[in-house]
């Protein structure tokens, strides 16, 4: 079953079992709901932006291992980054997850590179991108809901 190991890498499973920054954030500057109607993945992403920097980011929700791990890894990756850096990270992750072959070298993305395995599972790409689209919506729009369809 080595091929499943590409998708469910230890790092991803660890984030699934112990999601980081999995909490409500009453003083968030933005709270956006991400919803994947196809599989019922549902999360709420909170960000607190001050002086152009992501001071805090967290999420709550229910979903498959890939969507939960992706959201958890996202919070670790963008914590403390400038909004501009976070936006660049969204662009890189979007490229990594949706383009095949991708122009992004997974090794350069650190832990996030572990999500590259989702490529081989077209039906699961949306699980991995949900939290990233939610972040993009939180940083760039006034919308409170985003769905991937």
């Amino acid at each position, binding site marked *: 079953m080595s091929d499943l190991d590409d*998708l469910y890498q230890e790092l991803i499973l660890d984030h699934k079992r112990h999601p980081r920054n999995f909490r409500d954030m009453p003083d968030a500057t933005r709270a956006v709901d991400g919803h994947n109607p196809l*599989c*019922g993945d549902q999360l709420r992403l909170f960000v607190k932006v001050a002086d152009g920097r992501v001071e805090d980011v967290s999420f709550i929700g229910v*979903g498959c291992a*890939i969507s939960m791990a992706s959201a958890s890894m996202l919070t670790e990756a963008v914590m403390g980054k400038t909004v501009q850096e976070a936006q660049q990270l969204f662009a890189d992750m979007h490229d990594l997850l949706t383009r095949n072959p991708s122009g992004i070298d997974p090794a350069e993305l650190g832990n996030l590179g572990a999500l590259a395995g989702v490529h081989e599972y077209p039906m*699961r790409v949306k699980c991995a991108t949900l939290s990233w689209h939610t972040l993009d919506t939180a940083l760039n729009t006034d919308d409170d809901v985003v769905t991937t369809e």
Partner: protein
Amino acid sequence: MTVSNEPMTSPGWDVTSVRRDFPILEQSVHGYPLAYLDNAATTQKPRVVLEAMDGYYRRDNANVHRGVHALAERATGAFEAARESVRRFINARSTREIVFVRGTTEAINLVASSFGQRLREGDEILISAMEHHANIVPWQLLRERSGIVLRVVPITPAGELDLDRLSSLFTPRTRLLAITHVSNALGTVNPVRELIAEARRHGVPVLLDGAQALPHLRVDVQALDCDFYAFSGHKLFGPTGIGVLYGRESLLETLPPYQGGGEMIRTVSFEKTTFAGLPHRFEAGTPDISGVIGLGRAIEYLEQLDWDAATAYEARLLEHATACLQDVPGLRIIGQARHKVALVSFVMEDVHPHDMGTILDRRGLAVRAGHHCAMPVMSYYGVPATSRAAMAFYNTFDEIDRLAEALRYARELLA
């Protein structure tokens, strides 16, 4: 993968030979023999159906009911012969009661549209908490148009209709009971005779959603005494894009047309159009001719099977699947009705149905993960989605054993 040592055969049912009728089942997926357990979504098609459709396009293709040339005659003959096969299969009184539509969804929309025109604000439609969206949303659209009221028969934790509540839900304003014969999300077989008897006591006509029933049960619409019966060809080992609305003739006759166009008219002038008789009045436009022919052939295929043996075999498959899955750590079966078709819906602690679907797929096991177009059922059980193994008479005990084994593996991997 485990292979059970006991030869799991069933008297009178030669599954090996039946499987040979379905060419698609012969393939491997990710290096494993395909175990197709998604039959509630759609069933596979026997070779004879594929050949009938191919043969129609190769030899007989012509529009129906329109030409006098040889091809038109052959096409029309085959088309109407299929209608007769459908009539015979569900024991309708007349082919005038067999309306071809795209599927169950369109059949119910037709009733909501045509029957719906006679309803007034405050009139009530009674459905159940285990309906497919196809038997919810058309009534909600009608509610927006006409201000009708939707009432819902609740279900019990076992996944059965709460019959104690049924009688009190009928009111003097109830105009239709529209209910599923078999639940696609739970596998429950509803006691349709009792339901129809109760509706009769209140003078209310009944529509049955038979999409999941006909692939497993023999249905006699006269014996049932229902008013409408809707089903889809693709769930009945026939092609996609074709389905049937059975309507009691005396009721269909009183309904206005559904769509307008060719085929459904007798004469047209700009002042006045007169409509064709049944069933053509409800079949505007060129129909899915090859689909109808394929459906007719699928029904003939089913008719030559030993149906009692098939039913007994499916019951044993269900029993085996229930026992095997119940044994898997962390697994909970959703839907434990006393009377079920061969379908097991389940959730597993720490393993989301979507991950389950992926893991099983990598072992050649095709199951459905999701809300099964029955979101109210999911919210009743407090789950976002379930995994569903939906069996047909061509599935094997070995496939169920492989499923149980893969479920254990999924839990080891993800929990």
